[in-house]
């Protein structure tokens, strides 16, 4: 590899931001100033393979610059490339892939205004216009429209990020023009967010399993976590041994809660039995599905539970290193998880000798940078490895060749925290919850036209109507979006659908990631559908043609029929169907395959354009 670096140099601040992550450069070969020739410069080039093997630090490096400066200049990018021996063209491709990075100068403070479904229904469009009028040019704030910020229970939402050392963030939700402007102009003095339990209307209910500790324990205290039953599951895991843990999880009938519903025990067994080493555990906390915020609430309200669950999972699959891939728009979850991991490490619950059992495991947090596609498991691996977050084609599957080409078990946050009650209560007791086909408790993210939006926990098998009643559904319900933007709409007369994998399948819809978004008659449906199409067009990685161009053609067709119905819309609806069918059949990954689901269901089930 003969890399070519341009003439642009980093500023002192940019250099400092990168050096804080990677340590100072040792020779001018890797970007140290040339003014004083060092002995190392004359004899050999440090870096090379050693540096190249740290390619996975590219994303953290881009974050370091973006956090400190607010954008990534040519000089900063080239310096980072020198340090890691990454070709600048590839690093540029990575930097431009993520929505939260900018390679063009922009104000140090950026206000991300959520424009996605729940916020759109709560008037985000008018709010954005108001904020833009208030924070015009000269205010020193860049206003950017953002996809779902995962704050749907407090819609409409805004996230202010001010670059500096350290970077400052402020979440304002529910927000107004004045509140958003204040968060942006003084993130440090913005009012604190309500506690995580605010998002759990059932908090304190003794029947809760997964959410039992949210709002009950102090999320900053490991002792409090242990006092509330923490680390009992890990002790049981050590008593059972890895194979025993997998057997319990398999017997419990746990399936993945991220939307694909793959049996977790089978995934772990397949990973554990791979002869290739090392094995990795990846926790997918990149929940970017519009309407989904359950992982955020769990991480904010009960962070040690995730640390413990990841330790159990890693022990079962034989991994000594776990990555927590956390979406970049969750500053509080990031802080809580950082703190929890640090405490666990200090107390011997992570590290060389977990619980004195001679088992080594540690967790590294990786921050996403604004890309829905990175929730796709193989795209997530690419993102961690320092490549563009494009999905890989399968097979080979991650259990065989995953992160860094090694056997990897990937689970989302909700799936992992289910492992704790399986171990503490036993597989049989766990499997007794729910239905025979869908065992255990399930988290739902309820938002939209309800009185008490938030995360609800119910055993599988409750009906959609029961859930909505719990959340206080308002009158004149027009539609319910089930499973998020990649899910489907159902009608108000279908509320007896049982919330199980088999029940939703039988009803021709999906449980997806557990989103339940209610829309009353005041919500303009065509505009909502347009927003869904726009979301997928924005978030397509662009790798394959059906998704890259198909999402654009669908959005165009929806624009054309926004105001039309019946026969006038028929030809464009036919076109939507034809393109949608090819996207579902021929796209590389789930994004393209499901991008048309919600709109199709709105046409078929709701008669959106009749």
């Amino acid at each position: 590899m003969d890399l070519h670096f341009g003439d642009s140099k980093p500023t002192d601040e940019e250099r400092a931001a990168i050096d804080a992550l990677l340590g100072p450069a040792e020779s001018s070969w890797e970007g140290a100033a040339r003014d004083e020739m060092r002995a190392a410069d004359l004899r050999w080039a440090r870096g090379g393979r050693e540096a190249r093997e740290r390619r996975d630090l590219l994303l953290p490096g881009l974050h370091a610059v973006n956090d400190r400066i607010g954008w990534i200049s040519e000089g900063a990018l080239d310096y980072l490339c020198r340090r890691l021996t990454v070709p600048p063209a590839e690093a540029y491709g990575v930097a431009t892939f993520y929505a939260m990075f900018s390679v063009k100068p922009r104000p140090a403070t950026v206000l991300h205004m959520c424009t996605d479904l729940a916020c759109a229904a709560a008037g985000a469009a008018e709010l954005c216009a108001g904020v833009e009028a208030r924070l015009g040019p000269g205010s020193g704030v860049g206003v950017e429209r953002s996809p779902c910020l995962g704050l749907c229970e407090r819609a409409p939402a805004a996230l202010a990020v001010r670059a500096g050392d350290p970077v400052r963030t402020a979440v304002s939700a529910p927000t107004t023009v004045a509140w958003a402007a204040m968060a942006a102009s003084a993130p440090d003095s913005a009012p604190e967010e309500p506690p995580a339990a605010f998002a759990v209307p059932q908090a304190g209910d003794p029947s809760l399993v997964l959410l039992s500790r949210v709002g009950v324990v102090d999320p900053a205290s490991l002792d409090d976590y242990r006092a509330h039953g923490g680390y009992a599951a890990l002790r049981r895991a050590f008593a059972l041994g890895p194979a025993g843990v997998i057997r319990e999880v398999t017997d419990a009938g746990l399936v993945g809660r991220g939307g694909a519903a793959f049996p977790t025990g089978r995934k772990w067994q397949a990973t554990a039995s791979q002869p290739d080493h090392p094995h990795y555990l990846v926790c997918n906390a990149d929940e970017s599905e519009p309407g989904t915020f359950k992982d955020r609430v769990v991480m904010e309200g009960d962070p040690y539970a995730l640390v413990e669950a990841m330790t159990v999972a890693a022990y079962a699959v034989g991994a000594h290193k776990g990555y927590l891939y956390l979406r970049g728009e969750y500053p509080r979850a990031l802080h809580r998880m950082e703190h929890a991991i640090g405490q666990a490490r200090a107390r011997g619950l992570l590290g060389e000798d977990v619980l004195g059992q001679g088992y080594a495991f540690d967790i590294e947090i990786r921050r996403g940078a604004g890309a829905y596609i990175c929730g796709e498991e193989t795209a997530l691996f690419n993102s961690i490895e320092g490549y563009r977050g494009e999905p890989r084609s399968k097979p080979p599957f991650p259990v065989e060749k995953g992160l860094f080409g090694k056997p990897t078990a990937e689970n989302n946050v909700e799936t992992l925290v289910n492992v704790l009650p399986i171990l503490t209560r036993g597989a049989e007791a766990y499997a007794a919850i729910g239905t025979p086909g869908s065992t255990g408790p399930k988290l739902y993210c309820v938002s939209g036209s309800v009185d008490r939006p938030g995360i609800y926990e119910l055993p599988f098998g409750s009906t959609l109507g029961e859930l909505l009643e719990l959340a206080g559904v308002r009158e004149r319900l027009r539609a319910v979006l089930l499973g998020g933007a990649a899910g489907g709409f159902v009608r108000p007369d279908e509320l007896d659908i049982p919330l199980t994998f088999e029940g939703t399948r039988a009803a021709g819809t999906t449980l997806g990631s557990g989103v339940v978004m209610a829309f009353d008659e005041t919500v303009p449906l065509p505009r909502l559908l347009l927003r869904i199409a726009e979301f997928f067009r924005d978030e397509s990685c662009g790798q394959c043609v059906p998704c890259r161009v198909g999402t654009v053609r669908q959005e165009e067709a929806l624009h054309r029929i926004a105001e039309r119905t019946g026969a006038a819309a028929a030809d464009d609806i036919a076109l939507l169907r034809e393109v949608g069918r090819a996207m579902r059949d021929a796209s590389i990954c789930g994004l393209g395959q499901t991008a048309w689901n919600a709109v199709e269901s709105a046409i078929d089930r709701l008669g959106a354009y009749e």
Partner: protein
Amino acid sequence: MTAIPLGVPRRLVEFTLDGQEARVPEGSTILDACRAAGKDVPTLCQGDTLTPKNACRVCVVELEGARTLVPACSRKAEAGMAVRTDTERARHSRKIVIELLASSVDLSTTPQVAGWIKEYEAKPDRFGPDAARLDEEPKIDNGLYVRDYDKCILCYKCVDACGDQWQNTFAISVAGRGFDARIAVEHDAPLTDSACVYCGNCIEVCPTGALSFRSEFDMRAAGTWDESAQTETTTVCAYCGVGCNLTLHVQDNEIVKVTSPHDNPVTHGNLCIKGRFGYQHVQNRD
């Protein structure tokens, strides 16, 4: 028909292809099997010298038991598979993909595509006159080659050829994402400010003419490019001792471009700047 390679014998994998028994060596793709059986499956991003990226999705076929269609170019044949190459479902996807591509980029210099548009009855115009497309002027920033993004289908072949599969120069990558994704050098700079070493191997693999020789681009603009009047002569490069094969494309007694045979076991179609572009001395008649 059965495909049997020369060289070390490999185990044969048996499966059914359109209801017929097919036997291919282990490691072969479905596309290899199709070609061995004389079946025509269209491909755009597949290249004979590169690992398939399966980005274009034109070659999708139906695999029994699979939820979605699978790309024939990269899916390995497995024993017991049942593959159908010409079902209504596969044809529908191919038709739509061709329509989507042809509506968003200029495929006028892409070989074979006109035939597929006809065969699959694709109607790229049906997305309307306002359908988004690039509409960008070709980038002419150096004397050797032209980047015409209007013709780029983002097949990743140039990225792979410039990167770890052949050249190891890593001058180009994909930047941006979604419909705005573009092949770009670092900081989207002119080629002359980039890491490019002008080997032209990206032109060699480009399936659409988005990358072309300056000579070809200028002649096409002037209306003098005439492939039917060209002869091709394969010879040995005279610059160094490696002995790369050059195929000289000659029109009106002038070399108009240089390619390299892909089946050459040493170069596999790759050349350096001298072999690819350094031919003026041959025809300097001053």
